[in-house]
């Protein structure tokens, strides 16, 4: 066990956990930020995507020890009122079915648009390819990313 000071969604929080603990489980079990989801545990599905210093990363493969000192943003902190342009676009296109993967999809999309505000179809497909949606909402996801890019 060791203590870590984490900057999550603009707040500094202290946790006492094993240094190997993936950030995913620190967020979910210790900080009660359960919007970030567990899907595969091996960085293959994207359900656990968060931003680390603005870059989309898989929190299931990121040991908490590597996250100290970085700006961590989760779905809960993407916007204050759930109204980030990507979140709004997701509502407009009524994207979710079961909804489980969508936080990860939104975090990936938001990071993409931060770096590339006007992505082509191919760039969207490439950026979103690491996020599995078992319900198959891919077309709406792509449409929502485009809508958000026009609003940014």
């Amino acid at each position, binding site marked *: *066990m060791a203590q870590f000071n984490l900057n999550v969604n603009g707040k500094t929080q202290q946790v006492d*956990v*094993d240094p*190997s*603990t*993936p950030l995913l*489980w620190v967020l*979910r*079990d*210790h900080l*009660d*930020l*359960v*919007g*970030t*989801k*567990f*899907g*595969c*545990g*091996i960085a*293959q*599905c994207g*359900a656990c995507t968060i931003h680390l210093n603005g870059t989309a990363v898989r929190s299931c493969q990121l040991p908490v020890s590597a996250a100290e000192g970085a700006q961590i943003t*989760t*779905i809960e902190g*993407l*916007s204050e009122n*759930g109204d980030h342009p990507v*979140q709004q676009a*997701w*509502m407009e296109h*009524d*994207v*979710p*079915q*079961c*909804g*489980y*993967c*969508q*936080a990860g999809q*939104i975090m990936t999309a938001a990071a993409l648009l931060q770096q590339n505000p006007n992505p082509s179809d191919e760039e*969207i*497909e*490439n950026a979103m*390819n*690491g*996020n*599995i*949606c*078992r*319900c*198959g*909402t*891919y*077309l*709406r*996801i*792509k449409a929502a990313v485009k809508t958000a890019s026009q609003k940014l």
Partner: protein
Amino acid sequence: MTKVNTKLDRRSFLKVSALAGGGMMLSFSWLAGCKPTVEEELGLPKEWFELNSYIKIGENGAVTLYSPNPEFGSNVKTSMPMILAEELDTDWKNVWVEQADFYPERFDRQFTGGSQGIRMGWTPLRTAGATARAMLVAAAAQNWNVPANEITTSAGILEHKASGKKANYGEMASLAATLEVPEEVELKDINDFKIIGHSKKNVDGQKIVSGKPLFAIDHKVEGMKYAAIVHPPAFGMRLKSFDKSSVMGMSGIQDVFPVNVFKDDYVQNFFDTTTFPEIIAIVGNSTWEVMQAKKNLVAEWEKAPETKIAMAGFGGNSMEVTVPAGLENSSSHKSRMAEFLKKPGTVVRKDGDPEGMFKKAAKVIERTYSAPFLAHNTMEPMNCFADVKGDRAVIYGPTQAPEFIMGTISSSLGIPRENIQINLARMGGGFGRRAYSHHMVEAALISQKIQAPVKMVYSREDDMSAGVYRPTYSATYRAALDENNNLLALHVKAGGIPESPLHANRFPAGALDHYMAESWDIPSNITIGAFRAPRSNFIAGAEQSFLDELAEEMGKDPIDFRLELLKRAETDPVGSNNDYDPKRYAGVLQLVKEKSNWSQAQSNVHRGVSAYFCHNSYVAEVVDTVIKDNKPVVESVYAAVDCGIVVNPDAAANMGEGAIVDGIGNAFFGELAFNNGAPTKTNFDTYRMIRQKESPKKIEVHFVESTENPTGLGEPLFPPVFAALANSLYKATGKRYYEQPFAPQLEMENLRM
């Protein structure tokens, strides 16, 4: 207007206060409620007045509607309340929706599966809405001293035009709640619908996009422990022993113990399917700690002998089901299935003289199709929260079928049903997998043992290797043609491990004078269960691929060929027990022909068509593929659907799109194989799922305009896409695709997948 008797649904109209448990139980959490719109919202009322189990109205006119069925992504949590709101005649923007928990004494059929939620809920929900409306009208009539039949309603407002009196529902709710439930109510004319047929956004949308806790896996209470499970590494194996000391010293680990899912004398039901009735539970302080301990646990496994399970049958009898011993392999599955090419099956339908026709045929075409086992792979792995203390239990978990597991939980815990509360979580996907809720029993037993609340979570590897799969299937189709290429007879022989996919009385049965269907199955210890459109999800692909090849052989357009057969089934059906309506079947083919511009083929676009009937609905689909950079790309999919009245059109299209993507993904990539009883894939690094890049570039879902009552929607768009894709790939590559998944064969064509 239709008059319906409310008696059938009377239990739904009992006042909550009259039931054991009291009103506080009705809502698991007020915070779980959902507000569909933010503009012009009515605040929380001071008091709620309950008109029946589904509906309560506040003094300010705010309406809470309970969505009875578990939500796994088919959006019933929006569409079922839409049906209530329509007949209640309220304004959708004043509606709050809450997920009902499991209360069989208050709600009808709290089951999500078989695409039956809206179909079976249609009349009960309309009746519940209309009954509440009638009680509000009666209250206004009493209050204003005017005849009830002179009062009109609109968008939550009662009005008596002659006297100029007007009130919102909230003003009459307290009186209405005290009135007798009418014996008979009138339902709206469907032409007067204002909510049904008009797209409404997902009531949980805002919560989903902002990451609010909605799923059982998100649940946490004070003092809650975390649990992981360890199950045998292969089908046909069981626990021999384990070494507790291998993990007991580890950080955060509290206890390790075996869990026996069923009591010895328990008679299982059909949905009690579980692969490993004995597992090991590890309990500790956090998910990561119990998952670390899982890796360290030293356990010995042994081969399981053949076992007999007592299974509840029809009429209260129980029957014995045998689970064979042995460690099975995909290679032996294939060879055992291939034996049925020569062996007869059981004849399940025979019209005319098919054998005679095959003898005199000038040409016989025979093709065999197959598909592997599939894992459901819901994005949210199996998990469950349970809090069992003494003789009381609260279970909060992802389940499609609480009724089917309640008795199991009660038996396994030794706690009477009335002391067990099952609360319904939004599910991160279901696809049939969560109709089997052994995970709830496991969590309950773990909590009972430690007498504390616990959240049990499967790893992805546990989830993918725990069974309850889509079976592997094979089907051989034969057609007899005369010297002029006229179709004389059709023969299908189909089976699987461990069940047959055959629906003997579906099309093309009924359209052919000489037809035979044979069925077979091979027992196995690999557990199976419902998977989106069970059986149809395979047989549709086989049948519709064969019809495509047959049409080509006969020199006919594939849509025209199907329409000819359907015309025959309509005008002069063969046999009397055909379970489809040929006219509606033909209707979707005609619609897809029009919408896809079938007659105007584009160069370099390769088209395939398919149509299927299941879950009471008709679907035809056209898939267009192109070869781009040596890679097959699904450019467009057109679907035509006849599912009767469509309650929530945009959400219905969304689900149709998803079913099409799901089908294309499984057709290209879906496969679970076995080596010495162990699944060869246990996570998404090897189990390939369809992703954004392989998704079609465009999908159009067109609904037949209909005044028929709604039928199934979650499943029917899934089965036909397998053949529409295969037929399109044939046009693109010149090769037929008989064996799923298609990707390995496409790679053999030097295409990139």
